[in-house]
């Protein structure tokens, strides 16, 4: 089979799931005839028609709420945010209505919210956001943020089949930058399981999404220049978090660097650090360190964006310090 991009992998998952289950349908702005701002849903409407590929008004709370209502009735809506930044408009609906529906009212809510996320693309403060931390403390939601094309496909299929509401963040920097051959057959990747992206013994880098690639690049450089063996753990799912995988890598290397693209304060790294403390403190030979974005709204101009976001050089330099600790 030919290699396909991260974006094509997502599209493939949509086609396969719509084919498999007549209850699956898509909603979002400009996803029909236009195929979506990034063309992820291109071709869906031709195959499945306007009934199952719905162009919505500009009403994120409205159509996310509608997805919830439809999902109570047994449908499986897949909702696109044109940019994930606009998910903030549906914040109430997601955290109050959807996340609690099963718990407080025994209403099933199998839906997926997906959309282009993340920076490194000169999108400016409102087209580059990483919203995972805003939802991490909402029990009832699941959060997925894949880094590879096959994970994107397999996890989206899992998300659509999942009986709980899943936020599925797609990194737009990766959309067309990475390619991979898809596994044969019905490729489903389980939600809640991390993946070792690179094995190593000296330092662990725990990360997810685009910074997995930055970490891999740094690991390569550290191997070459310092002879350091760096393990890279790609979380893939942020909620629920794979404690087992985290603890395993900590016990193996005893040195942890957490990398994320989101701003530092209140980012996901904090939660990971707390869990490592609780579960594997005795195995730590050095402080858990973080490489993250600086605590500012993400600026637009290339020199500014590059300065604010984590870069390979940052990872290399902090990993070196950790190894030397």
């Amino acid at each position, binding site marked *: 089979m030919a290699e396909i991009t991260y974006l094509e992998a997502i599209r493939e998952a949509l086609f396969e799931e719509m084919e498999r289950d007549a209850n699956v*349908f898509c909603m979002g702005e400009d996803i029909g005839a236009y195929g979506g701002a990034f063309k992820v849903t291109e071709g869906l409407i031709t195959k499945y028609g306007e*009934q*199952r590929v*719905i162009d*919505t*008004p500009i*009403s*994120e*709370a*409205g*159509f*996310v*709420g*509608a*997805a*919830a*209502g*439809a*999902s*109570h*009735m*047994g*449908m499986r*809506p897949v909702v696109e945010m044109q940019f994930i930044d606009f998910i903030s408009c549906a914040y*109430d*609906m997601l955290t*109050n*209505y959807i996340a*609690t*529906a*099963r*718990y*407080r*009212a*025994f*209403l*099933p809510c*199998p839906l997926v919210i997906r959309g282009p996320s993340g920076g490194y693309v000169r999108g400016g403060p409102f087209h580059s956001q990483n919203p995972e931390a805003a939802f991490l403390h909402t*029990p*009832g939601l*699941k959060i997925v943020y894949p880094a590879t094309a096959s994970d994107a496909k397999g996890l989206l299929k899992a998300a659509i089949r*999942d*009986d*709980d509401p899943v936020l599925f963040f797609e990194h737009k920097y990766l959309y067309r930058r990475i390619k991979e051959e898809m596994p044969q057959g019905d490729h489903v990747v389980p939600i809640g399981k991390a993946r070792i992206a690179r094995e190593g013994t000296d330092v662990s880098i725990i990360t997810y999404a685009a910074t997995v690639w930055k970490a891999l690049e740094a690991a390569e450089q550290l191997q070459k220049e310092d002879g350091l063996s760096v393990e890279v753990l790609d979380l893939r799912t942020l909620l*629920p978090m794979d404690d087992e995988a985290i603890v395993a890598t900590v016990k193996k290397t005893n040195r942890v660097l957490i990398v994320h693209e989101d701003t530092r304060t209140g980012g996901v790294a904090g939660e990971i650090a707390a869990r490592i403390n*609780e579960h594997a403190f005795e195995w730590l030979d050095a402080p858990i360190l973080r490489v993250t974005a600086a605590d500012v709204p993400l600026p637009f101009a290339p020199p500014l964006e590059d300065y604010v976001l984590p870069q390979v050089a940052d990872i290399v330099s902090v990993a070196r310090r950790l190894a030397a600790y």
Partner: protein
Amino acid sequence: LYYWMRLTRSLEERLVNLYRQTKVVGGLFRSLGQEADAVGSAFALDRTSGDILSPLIRNLGSMLVQGAQPLEIIRQYMAKGDSPTRGRELNIHFGDTVRGFVGQISHLGDMVPVMAGVTLSFKMRGEKRVGLVYVGDGATSTGAFHEGINFAAVQRCPLVVIVENNGYAYSTPNSKQSAVKEFKDKAMAYGIPGIRADGNDVLATFDVTRDAVDRARRGEGVTLIELMTYRRKGHAEHDNQSYVPAGEIDKWEKQNDPIDRYARVLLEELQVEKKELDAIDARVSAEIDQATDLAEQSPAAEPTDALVGVYADPAVVEPLWYRAGVRSAVEKNERAAGWGTFNG
């Protein structure tokens, strides 16, 4: 209809008693004077077609019509372990899509998009079912109301939106809520019909809702109905209504009580005999007495049940590691914090 209205009122009166005995946990919300709009509109749905409504806090009557039981209501208000939400949610915040009502959340307006989606699914599947969603005058100001009704209008969902205009949102009069003269005009913003009716006339309410329900069932889309009524009690039991002009409540009570009005219609126009109504009243009393007795015997909620059912998978959240067992720090019948009357 008379039965449902009477049941609504008497059940709420019983809850007031229980509230005064500090057996109710949380606030108590009344629909006194609004029973006709709730009951009449819900009655216009077809319970054999699988129609679904989404009630608000003043729609106890609508829920009863759809099959909610007094026993469930009392258990909810007493936060019992065998209440419909097993103690997770307050008062009438519960639902049952089989009987045809959805559990609301507190955030006003949110149920409009949700019901847009419920009815979208009816449309997508070619089912001849209809949805009905209630909002207050106050809730029309929310963005969720706007986005939901607009979405439903564009999609021509089989949805009826009822704006219960009871004059106030908590203490806020309509004049501070919106500059419109009639809330029915809000329909104009969505390209759908907007109709106003007397919400204290149960038959008028039924008629206007039935028309809108039929229209929806025929695939002709959304209708907005404004039902004129009046909230004779405060927002909740603790609210002393000091903001209401003198005499206003009295006037509505004396001249425009929906149950009195319907009883008069029954007795004077439809030749129903007084004793038939008395019999209904007696039946209602007996039902409520029985429900109260049962509810009082219900067990409290089971602490560890708190960990069940956040997700389909995992079905149970792991207990916090430091929790050896189950603790019960609660004194029996502790009075919960009344909002605004909190004297901790």
